[in-house]
């Protein structure tokens, strides 16, 4: 077994190519759980968490460029808190302080769990994933990134290099339902982003489908029903309630040991209603 600690993304990509059975490791909060449990035989590790290129968070061209190695603790703070507050809210709900200091947004994307806390937000904000591989770099819209539970568009030997999050002008929020008040995997979660310039409403749903889901029809309906102003959007209470129903209809929840499909769908209805209510002020 080998552990390779590259100092650049190119070196990391080369290492992954040279060791086809290698696993990329950043914060370890997903991988090490499996290793410690004996459920993940290790051949080689390419440790990418301290690559300088992956560490940064920049604001440029109307977007936040977040390096894959940015930890959730950093995502709770500016500039993310200022320019993508829903992502900062989601970051605060990840695991525990210990987990947030280690877990990275790149890892959240690469693990591609339908319960990943940042993923509904990235979906709602229309983010795109920067992927690095031997063929060079490519960008994959988050909407196309998740292909199934814990499956993504990453090809063998590819690495998540970062995520580009458009800065949307308007209210946004993230709501997460868990049985306990800390350290809990979402039973249902919802991100919402209102774009006062584009006059759009976007939603991302977590833990209620094989991947994060978008509820596009419900959002298009709501955007058409809304009263748009320069600095605010208004919507009637009845329409907000109907929005809740429509978003709930878009969910594809299942029964599992954490909850039931029925509860999850009803929770989504409530989350959607409350989230939109908050956005319309």
């Amino acid at each position: 077994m080998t552990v390779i600690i590259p100092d650049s993304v190119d070196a990391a990509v080369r290492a992954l190519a040279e060791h086809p059975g290698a696993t990329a490791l950043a914060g370890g909060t997903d991988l090490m759980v499996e290793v410690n449990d004996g459920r993940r035989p290790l051949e080689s590790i390419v440790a990418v968490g301290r690559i300088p290129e992956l560490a940064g968070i920049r604001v440029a061209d109307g977007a936040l460029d977040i390096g894959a190695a940015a930890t959730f603790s950093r995502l709770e703070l500016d500039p993310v808190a200022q320019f993508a507050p829903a992502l900062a809210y989601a970051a605060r709900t990840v695991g525990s302080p210990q987990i947030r200091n280690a877990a990275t947004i790149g890892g959240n994307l690469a693990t591609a769990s339908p319960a990943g806390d940042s993923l509904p937000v990235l979906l709602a904000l229309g983010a795109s994933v920067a992927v690095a591989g031997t063929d060079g770099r490519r960008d994959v819209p988050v909407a196309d990134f998740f292909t199934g539970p814990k499956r993504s568009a990453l090809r063998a030997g590819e690495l998540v290099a970062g995520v580009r999050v458009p800065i949307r002008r308007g209210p946004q929020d993230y709501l997460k339902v868990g049985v306990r008040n800390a350290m809990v995997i979402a039973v249902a979660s919802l991100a919402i982003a209102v774009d006062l310039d584009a006059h759009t409403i976007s939603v991302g749903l977590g833990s209620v489908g094989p991947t994060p889901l978008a509820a596009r029809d419900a959002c298009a309906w709501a955007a058409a029903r809304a009263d748009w102003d320069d600095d605010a959007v208004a919507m009637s209470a009845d329409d907000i309630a109907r929005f809740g129903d429509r978003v709930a209809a878009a969910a594809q929840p299942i029964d599992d040991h954490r909850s039931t499909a029925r509860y999850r769908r009803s929770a989504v209805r409530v989350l959607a209603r409350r989230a939109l209510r908050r956005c319309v002020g």
Partner: protein
Amino acid sequence: MTEMYVLRVNGEDRAVADAWLGESLLYVLRERLGLPGAKAGCEQGECGSCSVLLDGALVCACLVLAAAAVGCNVTTVEGLQPAERGAASAVQRAFVETGAVQCGFCTPGLVMAVEALLDRDPEPSDLAVREAISGNLCRCTGYGRILEAVVVAARTRGTVTT
């Protein structure tokens, strides 16, 4: 298993030899470096008993691949407390004096979390304390005495200690 790597732990360079490279930092600290203060409660990052500082940030040592922590500064409870036998930091004394220690298994991890908290927020509110220690499970105390210990520690920290 013939790799050797060096970890910087509590300010000292410590060599780790003949180790399986899949070992967590928690395992290496406890089984190879003679530092059993961090405890193995779940090995999933869900209990905080293994909390250490990695480059100053509170993390679960069970989730750190030891061989990938080369070049980082690791601080354990052994490194954070006064070296003399029987001596204790203000936080540690507060834990003892408020009855916040019962079985003690969660205690070193909590001490690390509270030291880290008070370093960045010397007078935290009750909710801020609860959030800061929300990654440290305690089964014995119900947290009441622990919260009291943090209040006492915030008051006594920075004053002369023995």
